[in-house]
Structure formats: C-alpha cells, structure tokens
C-alpha cells in the first residue's frame, strides 16, 4: 500500500500552497507536485475599470512587491496613452520610477534573505524548528537581524518618498509620475543618521554577499548540489548591450548551455513568443516558449535567471561580484537552485548602488512629470520584479474601459522550476525512507523557498502558520497526521 505526504501550507513563503508527494510500497517516488490552492481573479475583475485605475488596483495582488505590479501596469498604460515605452517618459518620471523600483527590489530581496531564508542557513535545514525562524535569528544573531530590519526599512522609505506610501502607493500614473522627490528627501537618503543612509546600505549589502560566499565555502556540496537541475533562463536585458536591466528592457532567454534561444524581443511582442499551459491540479499556469513547446520551453526567472542571461551589471561593486558568480560556472548558466540566494544578494548590492546613482541625479527633484501622446487600444508592460519577469498586458476601449487583462506573474513563470526542485528533493532526500522526519519535509520547503515564491501574490502575515503533514494511502485514507503551529 503506497502513501502520500502532504505539506500544507508551505511556510516562510508569501501566500499559500501545498506539496503532495506520493510514494509506492517500497517508498519510491511515484509523483510530486506543488499545488497553488488560491484563486485570485484579478484579470477578470479589472475588466470594465478605467485604464488609469489599473496601476493602483492590480498592485493589490501583493503586499510584498506591489511596486512591481504598480510599475508594470503603469508601463502598459504608458503605451496606451501614447507616452511610449520606458524612454518615452520625461527624465524625471523615468528616474523617479526607477528609484521606486530599486527600493522595492532592495526591500523585497532583503526580506526574503534575512527573514525567510537565513534561519535555514544559520541553524541548518535540520535545525530545531522551534528556533529555526526569524525570532531565533533575532535572539542568537541580533546584529544580523537588525541589519535585515533596517535595510528593509530603507527600501520602504524610498518607496514612500516616490509613491506616497510604503505599501500600495500611487506614484506611477499612465504617462509619468505624480510627484518627484524633495531635496530634503534626497539629503536624508544620502546623508541620514546612521544606519539609514545609502552608503551604509551599500556596505551592508556587500557584507551580505560576503556572508553568503563564506557559507557557500563551508557548505559547498549542499549549496551546489541541492535542487540542481538544468533549465532555460529568461529575463529582461538592456537593449543594445545586454546589461542587467530591471525596469525596462528587451526579453532574452538562454538554454542550459547558454545559447540564446529568445533574442531581444520587444515587450509588445511577448505574446508571439510566450504562452501558458494549464493543469487540473493547480490554479497556477505553466508558461513556456512557444517555439520550444510545453515540454522543452519552460524556463526559470528571477535573480539566478537574470544573472545567467545578462552580459554584465552596470554598477561597479555588483559587477565585481557578478564576475565571480559567472566564473564559478565557467561562464555557463548556473543551474543550482541555492545559488539563487547568491544572485539575489548581488542584486541587493546592485540595487543599493543604483539607488545612490539616482539619488545624486538632479533630475530626481525637478523637471516635467508627464508625457502625453496618441491613444492606443493596447499596451504591454514588462518589468523584472524581485521574483522574476512580470508581464502585464491590457486592452482598452475608446471609452477608456479595460476590456482585457493578462498577467503572467513571476512566480507563475517559476511554476515548473519549483516543481522540478520539489521533485529533486523527493527523489534525493525523501525516497527510500520508511519514516519522513520534519527536517526532510523542511528541505522540500527550502527548495521552494529558494525561488522566493509569492504563491498568491497576496499580502504576507507574520505570525503562526500551521504546518499540516498527513500520510495517506493511495485511497486517500489518513495513516498519520502531524499538525504544528
């Protein structure tokens, strides 16, 4: 009689999901799946709304990276109002939005590494679950926990200065922004009392990269081999030179060997190249490159994919780390799921350096905010959200109502990769074991967590999340059940 392991909900990720692993009588893996059990429906209920509402409405998908949805929708609506893509905006609008975006990347990555992931690294994936959490980190590594909190605060303050609120602001509007920064804002970010100034943030970001590299050195096998699998990688890159570009670029993808399989596609053309598949057991779709098909066309997005696809990083310190990162795999795409953390921290450093560059730019505090042009009936906005490439596509009728909305959220792009990662743990950690202790189940979560999934793109609640694990036979009879929390 076979059995089925269910992990529900998955902890220390955004949103709610569950994992099922089916084993046969000899404890071999029959099947493993990551299920997304929430249904959101934003694509439907934005229909009929006025187009200018989209950037504010759709960002309510998420409380962690609303800025990404806010900006992606605003970029799509820039096209609709005839302001053109990216560089069609005024220099002030473009730079205010970029600063907002880097503030977002910075705070979201920091939240993920310090609050959600560091417990696994600091206490080990098999550490005592009672202390393997952010409270345990705060108690045993108070300096590190404080850094995490203050770095996130800095990013949130940048978002507030550019969009009006730390969460769900209104700064980006179709065709531009509704405000620029004051000189006092800029002065505070550049020269604020320690530690809330940009130089300290750059310094702490460098320290975080070193922390990971040191951990990597001591845990090489785990970091390199855990949830390793080959895949395609997709991200935006800067048009022309292929630099890492998080706000506005062209779509590029490489295969597992680094060969370019999608070459600098314009945002408005994405739907000719990318489609989504559906499966009956999850609400989350499976995006793929059309010319490669569902089986071979799936791809990873996010920090790992971005650093695999980009030619270089246009900021000094991050570029030095990028060179080490790329050299580690001899210039080939890096396929280790746990190296996602390494890539993410290099991006934290890049975001901090970019924020400083922007804060020193006089355009940030003066200049025209809006661009207008000839109305169009359709617009696409693509952005690199913290978790990966995010697609917003809208159609708008002549009376200004949205008639169609298609959102391909970053985590959706990582659906197949996360299933691959879960499958790796099932086959390499769980298979063959009669008993499945907690630390093995945590490793399933560690694999998913590497992708920083925002499973519902929903607001995140700190607090006790119950973990329910049930062992079932193939008829669905519960053999054993453990509930934590």
């Amino acid at each position, binding site marked *: 009689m076979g059995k089925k392991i269910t992990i529900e909900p998955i902890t220390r990720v955004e949103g709610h999901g569950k994992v099922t692993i089916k084993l046969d009588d000899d404890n071999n893996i029959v099947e493993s799946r990551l299920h997304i059990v929430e249904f959101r429906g934003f694509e439907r209920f934005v229909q*009929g709304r*006025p187009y200018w509402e989209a950037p*504010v409405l759709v960002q309510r998908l998420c409380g962690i990276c609303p800025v990404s949805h806010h900006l992606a929708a605003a970029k799509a609506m820039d096209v609709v109002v005839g302001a053109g893509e990216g560089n069609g905006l005024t220099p002030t609008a473009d730079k205010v939005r970029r600063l907002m975006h880097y503030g977002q990347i910075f705070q979201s990555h920091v939240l993920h590494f310090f609050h959600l992931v560091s417990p696994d690294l600091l206490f080990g994936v098999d550490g005592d679950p009672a202390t393997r959490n952010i409270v345990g980190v705060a108690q045993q590594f108070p300096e590190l926990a404080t850094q995490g909190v203050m770095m996130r605060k800095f990013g949130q303050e940048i978002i507030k200065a550019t969009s009006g609120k730390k969460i*769900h602001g209104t700064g980006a509007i179709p065709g531009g922004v509704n405000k620029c920064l004051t000189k006092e804002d800029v002065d505070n970010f550049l020269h604020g009392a320690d530690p809330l100034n940009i130089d300290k943030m750059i310094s702490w970001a460098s320290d975080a990269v070193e922390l990971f590299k040191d951990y990597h050195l001591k845990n090489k096998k785990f970091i390199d081999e855990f949830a390793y699998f080959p895949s395609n990688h997709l991200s935006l890159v800067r048009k022309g030179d292929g630099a890492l570009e998080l706000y506005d670029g062209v779509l590029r993808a490489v295969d597992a060997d680094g060969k370019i399989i999608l070459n600098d596609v314009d945002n408005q053309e994405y739907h000719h190249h990318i489609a989504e598949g559906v499966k009956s057991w999850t609400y989350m779709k499976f995006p793929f490159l059309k010319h490669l098909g569902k089986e071979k066309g799936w791809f990873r997005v996010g920090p790992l994919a971005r650093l695999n696809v980009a030619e270089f990083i246009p900021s000094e310190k991050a570029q030095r780390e990028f060179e080490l990162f790329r050299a580690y795999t001899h210039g080939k795409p890096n396929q280790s799921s746990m190296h996602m953390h390494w890539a993410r921290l290099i991006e934290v450093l890049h975001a901090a350096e970019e924020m400083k560059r922007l804060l020193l730019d006089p355009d940030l505090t003066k200049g025209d905010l809006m661009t207008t042009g000839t109305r169009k009936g359709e617009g696409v906005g693509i952005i690199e959200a913290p978790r990966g490439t995010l697609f917003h596509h809208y159609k708008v009728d002549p009376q200004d109502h949205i008639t169609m909305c298609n959102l391909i959220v970053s985590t959706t792009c990582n659906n197949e990769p996360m299933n691959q990662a879960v499958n790796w743990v099932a086959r390499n950690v769980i298979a063959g074991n009669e008993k499945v202790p907690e630390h093995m189940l945590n490793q399933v979560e560690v694999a998913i967590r590497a992708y920083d999934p925002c499973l519902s793109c929903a607001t995140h609640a700190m607090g006790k999340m119950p973990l329910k694990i049930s062992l079932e036979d193939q008829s669905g009879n519960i053999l054993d059940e453990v509930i934590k929390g």
Partner: protein
Amino acid sequence: MSNEIQLTIDGKSIVAKLGQTIVEAARDNNVYIPTLCDFKNLTPAGTCRVCSVKVDGRVVVACGTRVASGMVVENESAEMTDTRKAIIEMLFVEGNHMCPTCEKSGNCELQAIAYHYRITAPRFPFLFPKKSLESVHPLLMLEHNRCIQCRRCVRGIRTKDGKGVFAFKNRSNNIELIMDKSRADDIDDELAAAAANICPVGAIIKKGVGFSTPIGERTFDKQQIGESYGK
C-alpha cells in the same frame, strides 16, 4: 429688534442669526456637525441624513432645520453619535465602496467622515448591489457603485444657460444617477471638473485625472474632516 438668538448645542450656549439652519449656526460657532449632501450656496436637500441631530427630543436633519430661540440641540451625545455612525455605515453597505483603489480616496467626504468616527467595519451586512461604471461623455464617467444619491450634482451643476445636467431615474433600490445627454455639447473641461469636484464620493469621474494628486497633497491628507472645528 435684534435678529440674534441663543440656543445650545451639546450644552454649549451659542448665538445664531434668525433664519440660519442649525448646520450654518454650528459652523459660525466653530461646532462640527458632519454633512454630505450639504454644499455651499445650494438649497438644503436633507438627502443623506448624516447631519441628524436631536432637537427637543426629536431627531431632525440639521441642514434643513432652522434655529429657534432656546433650542436645545444634541449633536455628539452617545446616542446621536451611534445613530450617525449607523447612517454612515448604511451608505457604505448600500453601495460598493472600494477605497483602496478609488481615485477619490483622500478627497472623499464619505471616507473622511468614516475616519472621523473611526468606523472600521459596518454593523450591517454588505448588500453588494450590482451596479456599473458608465462612460457617459468624452470627459465623464458615472461610477454608480459609489453614488450615495446626495443630489449635489443635480442641484449644483448647470450649463452656462442655467440648465441642469444630472438627474435621477427610478425609485428606491433602483434609483440611478443619469446625465442628460442632450446637454453633452455644453459640458466643457471646466464644467466636467466642477461635476467631479461637487461629488462627495467619486461617483462622477473626470476622465484621465485618476491619481494625479500625490498622496500627501489630497484634501484630507492635509487636514482631517472636522479637524478645524473646536480650535
């Protein structure tokens, strides 16, 4: 003969002019009575009932009741505050008010009054009526989900030749704001902006304005409703 009279609001003795409404007298004496359907220079309509006060044991609308000598007005008593909150909560549940994504947020008087009374959730069940967003003019949309039928637009928005632009059709639960489309040519940018501004809740939207006023510069970001009173 003096045209000044004396009355009390919540025990405080005030002087008012004969012919004033209770709301006008309260304003002149720095006493806050919340209003929604009341608007400067418009004849009182008494449609929203938010200014309900108790006078000599009877609940009346303060915007439509004239002061009288020796009148005893109960405004912020526990009973009247609760009654008023119930009225505000009914306005919320009878429409579909999605403040987080509403472009009127921060400039919305209904939202501001709810904040003033610290209303976090209504005591009544949401009715979730099926209402629509209607594009009625190249410059205007009517967001029926938000309309509280205060009639400020009906009373206050007129074309240059003095003709009304807005009206209501149907009755009771089916009542709905309409725009006279035969007046469409008379609605210019200025009148469209005036229509959006006279609406207390964002039921009349001037197209393309959206969220152009940044957070921090909206009306009630600077000063909460009723905050200037009593100082």
